[in-house]
């Protein structure tokens, strides 16, 4: 049941993208209960996730960027 902080951080990151399994989440919960430092990381990590959702981030696709780069290169 005991996992390292490194492993806990990995699971915590997976949780942000809903990719942690039930067992992993259980291990993380337990780790957060006994660890001193990880709860703060976990809290900030979740906050980053909610900020990203709140901001409704958009980005250009890689193909769009590639096209832009080509056009810019021609002019440059």
């Amino acid at each position, binding site marked *: 049941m005991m996992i390292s902080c490194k492993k806990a951080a990995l699971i915590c990151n997976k949780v942000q993208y809903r990719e942690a399994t039930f067992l992993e989440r259980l291990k993380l919960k337990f780790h957060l209960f006994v660890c001193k430092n990880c709860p703060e990381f976990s809290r900030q990590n979740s906050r980053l996730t909610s900020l990203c959702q*709140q901001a409704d981030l958009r980005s250009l696709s890689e193909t769009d960027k590639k096209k832009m780069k080509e056009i810019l290169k021609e002019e440059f």
Partner: protein
Amino acid sequence: MTEHVLHPEKWIDSYADYLFNYTIGRVNDAEIAKDLVQETFLAGLKSAKNYKGEAAERTWLIAILKRKVIDHYRKTNSKKGRAEVRMDYSVHTDSQGDWLEEQIADPFSSFETDAIENKELGLAIHACIAKLPKKQALVFSMKTIQEMDTETICNELDINPSNLWVMIHRARTTLMGCLNQNWFKP
């Protein structure tokens, strides 16, 4: 004071998403926003010799973009032959008629200030993403903004899942620090 120099070869990786988010908050149309960002880069290149290094590169590009957005509205308005204020009927209610009355600001609503704050938050996040190493920024955007699954990203970038999670971890840790500095304590 540090001397500012233009690096057009880095513009797209550093600023395209930032400018895109800025524009989309103003024109509300992804295609138009994309075109305006493109035009901004081209205009920037053309007037690069006028750049005096007084403003940071991004601020300078934003100044050009602002004019492009205004031009865009001028053009669309002159096509219709008159200035126009666009007011869409609220889609959040199913009531009909009397819509002017319904559009009056609700003094208790935090909707508008939230929307403005979220726009600024989006820009702050993009400014932080732009500071990440290129590959980390790419992986983070694909995973978080484009919401692609791990397997697809790994195939596309030819990396394995543990590489991906290491990059995500580094990106997220840096972003938390960057936002703590620039968003929570401005």
